[in-house]
């Protein structure tokens, strides 16, 4: 059983479309991070959210942390082929000393 459930697992869309990836849990997280991973490379941090209800924007990407700090979403506006990759959410709980719990990931493919 995954502590962090991501949906959808696969997403294949056309350039210019909008999309949302969800990261849900029954547990409360003190912070939540989103990473992007390209083939043959390690994940790279996109954003960290720490406050319930927090919204952060990174160009065409909008990240939201749920009010209860149990869920998060990543919304991409006008997706581009360069957005293609594996998106991972990861959470830290209480005094877990940086031991991130990862979701299973969402593979996004944006077709030209």
């Amino acid at each position, binding site marked *: 059983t995954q502590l962090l459930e991501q949906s959808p*697992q696969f997403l294949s869309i056309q350039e210019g479309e909008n999309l949302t990836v969800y990261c849900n849990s029954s547990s409360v997280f003190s912070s939540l*991070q989103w990473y992007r991973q390209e083939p043959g490379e390690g*994940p790279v941090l996109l954003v960290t959210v720490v406050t319930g209800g927090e919204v952060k924007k990174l160009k065409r990407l909008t990240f939201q942390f749920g009010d209860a700090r149990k869920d998060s979403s990543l919304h991409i506006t006008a997706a581009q082929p360069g957005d293609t990759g594996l998106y991972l959410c990861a959470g830290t709980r209480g005094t877990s*000393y*940086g*031991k*991130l719990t*990862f*979701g299973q990931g969402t593979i996004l493919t944006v077709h030209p």
Partner: protein
Amino acid sequence: NAGVTQTPKFRILKIGQSMTLQCAQDMNHNYMYWYRQDPGMGLKLIYYSVGAGITDKGEVPNGYNVSRSTTEDFPLRLELAAPSQTSVYFCASSYSSAGELFFGEGSRLTVL
């Protein structure tokens, strides 16, 4: 500008063989981690360290050992390799317990 360096990038082992995956970081980070990534499963924490001489088990430690004699190095030892250890292994480091994780490029291990 090396960051986190992992070696080897690829390795094929026979069942029962042993090997060590090397990880070095040049950012003077106290926190270091070993994750394994299996298809559709996200990343699972194997072992972590909060400083030289201090290590602890993560979510999936069985079949692995680690040591942390210096701040820079955090090798992962596989004893008696099994097919279930076929995976991509990522080493990561962070400055603080809730900070950004910096990942290496990964080591792809196949056990036949």
